């Protein structure tokens, strides 16, 4: 299976033994005037230039800018930025929008990562037990959700939750009045404006992002499950292990690397969700519903542009992400055969 065959060689897949190549590198390679030792470096030049110029250098600039005040004249290139020390950061600490954005970012990411992983794993396990034809059918369906561009995701869910003609309000009205009152404290949902209030915007955003990202988790878990030898499960069954014990002792340990990767990816994606929120809010309008990405964007690009503050927010977001993912990155460096 194509899925598993590339999963398997992680770590051990690099078969090119260093010793064996040595003898070929004595002679100069024909057709290129380069000494063999220089070849990898030449191949890396464009990539390194791009990474330095478009990722690492801007990263440093971002940190520097977070200590500066950048006026319109600086943006136009006719004045030098002014150093303001920690002012951008101290102002942020006094700003209620910063704290609500921080809270929105973290709570949203925690809930969404958890839901995505749980739903994705459950669906992956389900796919593994379905017949081949049925699982292909479901995979094609969930892949089409995954493929929808973020902007279109936001648009679709904004339409589903539309106050006047949205299908969600229609569906909630279908619930028996008693049940709806019991669950939500109300029976009539006609005209419910979901996207006016920060709290309900996040309900919609969580649904949107979980809907679009669980398929990837499901298909990856399925690929992992198919790679586990059936004999292990045979043995467990002969030993009379319960399904939960089988999962804990066989499935989970063997899928741990896959889960590690999926968790880190979900964290990275969900901490910086921007396009979907931008569309659901119709631009940077409702400040109570900002997350750090949108707050940084709004500060930097909404008149009057405050790029220094925007950069400070971006620095905070980056630091949080680096801390959260540092542990997993270490794991991954260990797993991957980097040396």
């Amino acid at each position: 299976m194509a899925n598993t065959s590339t999963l398997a060689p992680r770590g051990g897949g690099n078969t090119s033994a260093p010793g064996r190549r040595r003898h070929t590198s004595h002679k100069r390679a024909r057709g290129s005037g380069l000494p063999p030792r220089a070849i990898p470096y030449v191949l890396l030049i464009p990539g390194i230039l791009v990474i330095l110029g478009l990722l690492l250098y801007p990263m440093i600039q971002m940190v520097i800018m977070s200590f500066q005040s950048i006026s319109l004249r600086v943006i136009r290139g006719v004045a030098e930025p002014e150093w303001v020390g920690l002012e951008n950061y101290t102002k942020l600490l006094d700003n209620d929008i910063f704290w609500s954005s921080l809270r929105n970012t973290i709570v949203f990411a925690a809930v969404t990562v958890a839901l995505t992983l749980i739903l994705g794993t459950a669906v992956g396990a389900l796919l593994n037990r379905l017949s081949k034809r049925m699982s292909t059918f479901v995979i094609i369906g969930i892949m089409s959700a995954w493929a929808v561009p973020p902007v279109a995701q936001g648009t679709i869910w904004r339409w589903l939750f539309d106050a006047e003609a949205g299908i969600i309000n229609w569906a909630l009205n279908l619930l028996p009045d008693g049940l709806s009152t019991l669950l939500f404290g109300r029976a009539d949902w006609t005209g419910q404006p979901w996207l006016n209030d920060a709290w309900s915007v996040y309900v919609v955003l969580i649904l949107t992002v979980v809907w679009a990202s669980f398929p990837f988790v499901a298909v990856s878990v399925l690929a992992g499950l198919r790679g586990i030898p059936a004999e292990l499960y045979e043995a467990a069954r002969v030993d009379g292990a319960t399904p939960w014990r089988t999962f804990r002792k066989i499935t989970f340990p063997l899928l741990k690397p896959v889960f590690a990767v999926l968790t880190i990816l979900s964290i990275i994606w969900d901490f910086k969700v921007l396009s979907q929120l931008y569309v659901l809010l119709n631009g940077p309008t409702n400040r109570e519903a900002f997350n750090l990405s949108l707050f940084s964007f709004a500060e930097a690009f909404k008149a009057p542009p405050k790029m220094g503050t925007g950069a400070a927010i971006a620095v905070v977001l980056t630091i949080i992400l680096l801390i959260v993912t540092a542990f997993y990155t270490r794991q991954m460096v260990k797993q991957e055969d980097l040396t």
Partner: protein
Amino acid sequence: MTPLARKRLNKIALNTAGVLVFLFAVFPVYWMVSTSFKANDQIFTTDFIPFPTHFTFEHVGKVLTDGVAGNSIWVYMRNSAIVALGTVLIGSAFALLAATAVARFRFKGRTSFLITLLIVQMIPTEALLIPLFLNVRRMGLYDNLLGLIVIQVGLTLPFGIWMLRTFVAAVPKSLEEAAWIDGASRFTTFWKVLFPLVAPGLVATSIFSFITAWNDLIFALVLMKDTTGYTMPVALQFFFGQRGTDWGAIMATSTLMTLPVIAFFLLVQRRMVSGLVAGAVKG
């Protein structure tokens, strides 16, 4: 209950769950497509209209001929295509070179390079928006599609290298060695032996880059000023700006933007997933 009956019941339960998952995933996409073919009286209603009984090309037609913000929709389609294809062409070439270097050679600095690749993928790319915006202005590429291509190459390259390197490593070294022994130059070997064998991996990374560039809203929003330079995701925002939201037109445009991507995804679905998992991190 007999074991056979239980087995059958179990199967029914599993298949029902499968159908429910399918519906949950597909319904919103279906709703987008069907809304774009519904007449307005069927769109703006509090009733549930499962499929367009007054099937109309009105919205699609309006979007295709009238366009939005004074330009035909084809202008935005073309811009999106230019940015996405430009990113793929430049990005894939760079990624293949770097992936070959790390998968085929042991050299000083290799490990640091790979760790750097991992770390730069942790940086939220949106956070780099401000410095990249200023740099692009300084380079005179503001409001220029080339500026957008440059940025997208930067954002997609680390992942492209990371993903492609597993594909290069999977090609047996002995094939290249055989070509050398037959007297082929390094370049010929690369071009005639390695390149065709890595092609599927290259397709997968290319499609990943294509979709990333195609989907981008924020960089295009900030870097393009004139409406003739807008990409599809930016143009779509214009429908919301006007008085009264024209949901038929919005859904038609969203559909136009989404269907090519879904088609691509379904074509290379298996490779995408294995590549993503093997590649470990996306920027």
